[in-house]
Structure formats: C-alpha cells, structure tokens
C-alpha cells in the first residue's frame, strides 16, 4: 500500500471537481481575517493565488527574490494560453483539451487533475479579460486564437509573442490592488531559505532579506510554494538567471516528496549556443511552428547559403516523418527529431548543431492572401514579399526582432537557426488533488508541482496551469485545510522550530562563506550543467546516468572544498545567493539521475536509449511504469522511492502517434 494518498474525489471524471467543491469545508469571512497565508514566488501561480486569497479575506504575505513581483519569469512566456472556449467552432471541448493534455503528457499524469485544469481553463480567459489583459483580437472585436503543438484545434489565446507578460501584469495588478488594500504584505528582494515545520505542519519560512543579508522569520497557518521550475540545474536553459530550486528543495529536505524529477522539457526551437561565455538560451516561441517550416539540407555539410538550396534538396524532416501533425508535433518529438538529424551529420551553422526554421513560404502565402484581399491582381514577387513580411511582423514581430538582436541575422530574409534547449520541468513536489504536498499545510502550485503535464507539457499549457492553480483551485482547496485552524490564533515565531530552522540556515551560510576556495560559483554551476546535459538531457542511458551520479557526487565534494564567495553575508551579495542555489542544484541533479535510472522506459521528455522502437520513437512501458515516482529525501545517497499508481479510467493509454 502506497503511503501516498492522492485524495482524488470519487464519482465520474466530469463531476469530480464540481462535487468536491460542493462538499469541502469553508472558512467563514470573519475567521479568514485571523488566518495568515505565506505565498512564496509571484509568477502566474503565486501572484494569482496571493491576490485571490487576499480578496477572500485571508492575510497574505507574499515573497519574491526579484526587485518587484512583476519580474517573475512567467513574464517571459511568449506564445499563448490554452482554453477550451471553442470560439473557433472547430470541435474543441473540455474533453478534447483534457484528452490532448493526457496524451501529450504521454500518459504519465493524473486524469482527475488534468480534467479539472481543462474545466477551469475557460474561466481563466474571462478573468484575464476582465482585468484588462489586451489579448489579440479580430476586426470584429472578438478574441483571436492560434494553434500550438500536439493538437488539431485552435484554442490558444495570445498577446503577440508576449502573452506571459500580459498575463503576469494582469495578476500583478490584482496583487497590487490587494497590497494597497492592506490585505497583502509584499516582501520583494527576499529569498526563502527554509520551511518551518511546527508539530508536523508547515507554519512558516525563514527568508533572507537580500538587501541587508538579515535572516527573517515569518509565520503563517499555511505556506504556498509557487516558485517555478528547476531547469537551471542544466546551467544553460531558457529560464531566467535567478530561477532556482531552493524553495522546493529545502521543503524536500524537510520531508516533502519530489515527484518525477527526471521529466524535463527540452524545447525544440531555441537560439543555438554560440560560445563558452553563454549565460542563457533564448526561446523562439512554439507559435512560430504555426507558420514556419523546419528543415535541414539533404546533403551533409552543405556549405551553400540556405536561400540558395533549392526546394528539392531540402529535407523537411518533421513533415516527412509526421505527416498528420507536421511541424506541429509536440515538443519532445520535435526536439528528438532535430537531435537525430544533427547527430546524423545534417546540422547547419558553424557548430553543426542547428536546423533551419524557415518563414519564406509563410511570407509568400500571407503576401498572396493579402494582395487578394486588397484586390491587387498579378502582384509582383517583391510586392507579395512586402505584404507577407508585414503580416508575419504583425504576428511575430517581437520574436523576429529578438532573434535579429541576438544573432545579427535578419530572419525575414534568411531562415532562423534553432536547436533544442532546456525549457520547463514537468517534475516537482508531489501534491494531492488539493495541491497539498505530503507535508500538511505546504501547498505547491504551478511549475513547482508535478501534477498536470505528465512526461511532456504541451505548448501554451504552463500559463494555463499556473493561473488555474492560483485563481481557481487553491482558493477552494486551501479553505478545506484551514477550516481546522480557525481557532489556532497567531503562530509564534519564537517556537523552537523557528530557532532550529534559522540556525540551520545560518550554519549553511557560514559554511559556504568560510570555504574561501579558489573557484567561482559559476565554475561549479557550469560543470554540473554539462554533466546533466550530456548524461541526463535529451537522451539518457544506464551507463551515462551511473557515471553522472558519481561525477555529481565528486563535484559536490569539490564545491564544499573549493568554492569562493567574496564579500560578506550581511549585505547585498549576489555571489552568495548563487552559491546557495547551486548547492541545492548539486543535490537535485543527482536525484534526477536516480529517477531517470529507475524509469526503465522512454516517455515524453524522458528518453532512455535502451528503450526505443526500430524507427527511434519512444518505447513506453505501461505495465511497469504507469506510476508517479515520488522520492523521499534520504540522508546520504539513498533517496527512497514511493509509487503512486496512475489509473486511467477514461482514456486508454495508447502508443502516442503523430503520424
């Protein structure tokens, strides 16, 4: 019998959430006023949760390490947000969004959670529009949509290539309103360094004021971690420089289970690495695959300029291998296909580790349509190109500009060079249906939890999940937990548990400051990233993972002997911040390898070389691995595995085919 109780409500799938909402306990308005809630992280999940809970009357304290809650990395999401509105009349429905997400996740997510996500998706769009989020519209004044990978309907709402920015600023405005109403106390430039457990319940955090270096104690009746993903364990990723695993890792060390850590998403369309100095990778939105076509030359080492390679000498490998979905196959499939072509020697660019994303035919197609609309008969090729370029610029202008700034090339005239990069992490802290971890009172929202995306996330679903958790799930489920706390009263920060937690944080900081070694934090972070990318990246093998584990252990030992953090701990010290985060990445990386080693199958973003079909597709094993791997922190090198079986009662797991 598993120790994990997912608390999935009984009843038919489509009624679970409705029935659950009707039967869980509530906290009355007067009692909410005496209950404190801590929200760590102010991205889509955190800002929406903090704002919604404050509106309901809870006293909220919100924390972010950036200089303002508006800077959280949700802001960088480009393409869009899914919702089963069926405004296109193209056959979309809650069930289809549910089905696409379960299938896209390669049957490694919970049916009940995913169905709820699809149900509330429609409310999210309503809420955001009411807040003044300026989504793209058609000339009739109604909302526009586009398509994303892995689906055959147009259900993605967007605001040019800046959808995340607009959604986050919407949530930030709702949060700001509650700050001014006195319902939220905002702590910016504060980093959570431990969760405090009092009598078995999460009752507070230890946070470091990053400006003064002081450690602060904050108590509450419940703690919500909305701290994003851990893609920066790879050093190079599309995450922001500050994105880190520290909050969830500290919770893991306190007993919270970490689920499916090896499920990482490698995004197929990113700007390739250009040199050793590279600090991060930049995504080119998946929305570009709506209109762009991906190809490599049919000849290895073709030195011609891409525009000089004739059509019949190009290999549009996605259209060739996956005719039904073509360039819009899911991310994991597109990434592996790019890697396959490059490994086989067909890559382009100086590094030969890139493929082309080409807009020439889209420009021609849009240009011709535009000329027709304007009644221009027999327009010249030049005119068509001009009109087509205008249409493409109106849809993707900011992305094209970003590409031009970074590479110095003009993507309207020559195809973009792209290659897969680490983008998102489906794994995260284990949570039940109520989004509570196995630690009572510790809730986990958004990318920081594991629950909705299985082994692969579909495009435009992260924004959906972050806002679903924050606006429409946790405001209900938190009440059910807090109903026991209406008479608890203030939680004292003088409790011995706070002394102990603060002492441990202080000790860790002193230890790191006192090493005074000879190597920078970045040296270790880069070394870890290389191990992870080479051995726990797009392709994994038993041999490689075992090597990675011993290499990470050695690197960790070296870190604690050789790292140098200049300055002091009692001031603004960005090197110290990085060192604390990298110390946690050095532990997480090892756990990811254990998880990847344990999962003897290929599914979604997890590809084990030993488990593939003859034509190189992932070979899933539903008999032995249809479970969530939830890891308990083990002292030393022995994490303990707990399994939550995944039961598919409404969809039958089948081989995922996009052919």
């Amino acid at each position, binding site marked *: 019998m598993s120790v994990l109780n997912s608390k999935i409500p009984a009843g038919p799938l489509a009624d679970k959430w409705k029935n659950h909402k009707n039967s869980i306990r509530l906290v009355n308005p007067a009692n909410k006023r005496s209950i404190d809630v801590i929200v760590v992280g102010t991205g889509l999940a955190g800002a929406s949760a903090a704002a919604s809970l404050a509106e309901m009357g809870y006293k909220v304290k919100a924390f972010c390490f950036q200089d303002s809650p508006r800077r959280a990395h949700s*802001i960088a999401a480009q393409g869009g947000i899914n919702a089963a509105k069926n405004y296109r009349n193209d056959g979309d429905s809650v069930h289809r969004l549910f089905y696409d997400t379960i299938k896209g996740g390669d049957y490694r997510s919970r049916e009940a959670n995913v169905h709820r996500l699809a149900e509330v998706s429609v409310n999210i769009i309503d*809420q955001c529009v009411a807040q003044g989020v300026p989504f793209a*519209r058609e000339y009739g*004044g109604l909302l526009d949509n586009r398509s994303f990978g892995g689906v055959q309907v147009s259900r993605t709402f967007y605001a040019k290539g800046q959808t995340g920015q607009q959604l986050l600023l919407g949530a930030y405005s709702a949060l700001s309103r509650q700050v001014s109403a006195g319902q939220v106390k*905002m702590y910016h430039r504060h980093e959570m360094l431990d969760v405090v457990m009092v009598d078995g319940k999460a009752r507070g955090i230890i946070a470091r004021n990053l400006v003064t270096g002081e450690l602060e104690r904050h108590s509450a009746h419940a703690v919500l971690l909305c701290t994003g993903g851990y893609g920066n364990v790879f050093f190079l990723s599309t995450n922001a420089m500050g994105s880190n695993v520290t909050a969830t890792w500290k919770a893991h060390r306190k007993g919270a289970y970490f689920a499916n850590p090896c499920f990482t998403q490698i995004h197929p369309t990113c700007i390739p690495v250009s040199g050793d*100095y590279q600090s991060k990778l930049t995504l080119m939105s998946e929305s570009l695959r709506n209109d762009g076509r991906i190809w490599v030359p049919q000849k290895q080492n073709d030195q011609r300029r891409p525009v000089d390679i004739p059509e019949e000498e190009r290999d549009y490998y996605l259209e060739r291998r996956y005719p039904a979905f073509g360039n819009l196959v899911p991310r994991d499939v597109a990434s592996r296909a790019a890697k396959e072509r490059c490994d086989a020697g067909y890559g382009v660019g100086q590094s030969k580790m890139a493929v082309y994303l080409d807009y020439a035919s889209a420009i021609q197609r849009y240009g011709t349509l535009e000329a027709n609309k304007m009644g221009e008969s027999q327009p010249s090729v030049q005119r068509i190109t001009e009109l087509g370029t205008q249409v493409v610029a109106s849809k993707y202008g900011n992305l094209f500009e970003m590409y031009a700034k970074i590479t110095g090339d003009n993507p309207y005239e020559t195809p973009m060079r792209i290659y897969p990069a680490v983008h998102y992490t489906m794994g995260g802290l284990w949570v039940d249906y109520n989004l509570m971890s196995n630690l009572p009172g510790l809730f986990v929202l958004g990318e920081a939890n594991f629950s909705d995306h299985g082994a692969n996330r579909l495009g435009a679903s992260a924004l959906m999940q972050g806002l679903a958790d924050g606006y429409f799930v946790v405001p209900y489920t938190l009440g059910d937990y807090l109903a026991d706390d209406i008479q608890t009263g203030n939680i004292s920060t003088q409790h011995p548990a706070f002394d102990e937690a603060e002492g441990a944080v202080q000790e860790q900081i002193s230890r790191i400051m006192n090493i005074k070694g000879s190597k920078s934090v970045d040296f270790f972070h880069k070394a870890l990233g290389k191990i992870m990318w080479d051995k726990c990246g797009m392709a994994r093998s038993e041999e490689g993972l075992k090597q990675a584990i011993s290499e990470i252990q050695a690197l960790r030992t070296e870190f604690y002997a050789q790292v140098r953090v200049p300055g002091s701990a009692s001031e603004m010290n960005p090197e110290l911040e990085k060192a604390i985060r990298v110390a946690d990445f050095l532990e997480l990386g090892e756990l990811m390898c254990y998880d990847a080693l344990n999962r003897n199958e290929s599914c979604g973003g997890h590809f084990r070389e030993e488990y593939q079909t003859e034509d190189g597709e992932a070979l899933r094993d539903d008999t032995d691995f249809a479970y969530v791997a939830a890891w308990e922190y083990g002292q030393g090198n022995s994490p303990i595995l707990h399994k939550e079986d995944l039961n598919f009662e409404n969809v039958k797991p089948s081989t995922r085919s996009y052919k």
Partner: protein
Amino acid sequence: MRLNLKIWRQKGPKANGKMVDYTLNEVNPEMSFLEMMDVLNQQLVDEGDEPVAFDHDCREGICGMCSMFINGRAHGPMTGTTTCQLHMRHFNDGDTIVIEPWRASAFPVIKDLMVDRSAFDRVIQAGGYISVNTGSAPDANSLPIPKQNADMAFDAATCIGCGACVATCKNASAMLFVGAKVSQLSLLPQGQPEREERAIRMVEQMDKEGFGNCTNTGACEVECPKGISIENIARLNREYLRAKVVQK
C-alpha cells in the same frame, strides 16, 4: 577585443561611490553586454575582488530587471534594446565604456549598479488595476473591443517597468511609465468605471515618490526599450485634466 571599463562602485546605500577602471582583454563580439559583465565578474572573483553587483534576470528583454546607464545612455547605444539584449558587436576594440546606475532620487542605489525601483510598484498599487475579484468575470467574448483600441492598449501595456524613461529624463519624470498604464486601462471598456480615480491617484503617488515633472523633451520615448510612445503622456495629461474636471 579589448575594452576599458569605467564602472560605478558603491558598497551600500549610504556609502560614497566612485568610478573604478577595469580592463578586459578577450571580449567576444557575439557576447551580450551582461555576458561581458559576467566575464568581468569572473575575473574579479578569480583575483579575489568583489564582483560588480547589477540587476538582471530573464536576459531576454522582457522582465525589466536589467538597467545600467552605458556611455551616458539608458540601456546603451542601441534603440529599442534592453541592456541584456545589447551585444558587444556594437562596440569596437579599444573602446572605453562608462557604466553607471540609473540616477534618480526616486531610485536610490542599493549597491554598485543596482537601484531600488519599488517606487514604481507603489505607483501601480495606487490605481494601476481594474477592481475585479477572481471568479466574477463575464464571458470573455461578451465584450467586443475594437481591434484598434485593443492594439493601442496592448502597445501601452508592453512597458516592462525598467525605469529607463526616468533615468533618461533630465527631471527624472515617470510620466511615460505612468502614462502607459493609465492609457492601457483608459482605452479599454473594462477600465472605464475607475478611470478618473485611477488617473488622480497614480499621479498623486508619482509626485509623492519624488519623480520630476515632464517638460516634453521626448528623451523617454527615444530610450524606451519597448518603444512606448510619448502619446501616452499626452493621454495621461488628458485623463488627469478630465478627471479633475469631472471630479469638480
């Protein structure tokens, strides 16, 4: 390429700062400006010195965290570009680059090139929102909005809150920042009920934070990495005046 850097170093909010010279010998033109700063910091750590503190996060031009006054210009010499998106190919071998923090009394220095921009948050808290509680929204398509208005609102809403407008303005005025938010919400039907109160409260807070007045030099528009139009300042003035009239 080889670069000479003159960088503002300041230990803390109350300490005196000064310009300090550094030399970098191997700068790759493909690097971003912040990657060049990473290389400098690596060199400083290797030499046992303290690295230069600067704000940065997404490094893709959208979070608004990076700042830096480079050779006398907010976010450096290229228009429409944040510091993180500025690349070294726009500089030449042997160049001297002067790097300072944003300078405005409403943005006090925290350390080196890092400043405190929480005044912007307080301006938004004063009214940069639509008062709608979670769960009470009508169907999104029940409210058609002319595309032109939606597009103008979007353009205003692309402000990243970096503060380049303030840093550039000789009066350290925040009118472009405030104008962008007031415009976005006043252009949309959802923003109408609180239109007057919003304009008045945001302007009051802006004044309280110590931002200066606008004298229409237009420098903010030139330096804004997102190309926010100065029309938004005109709209803010109109909204403010209208609010004052309506209020009376």
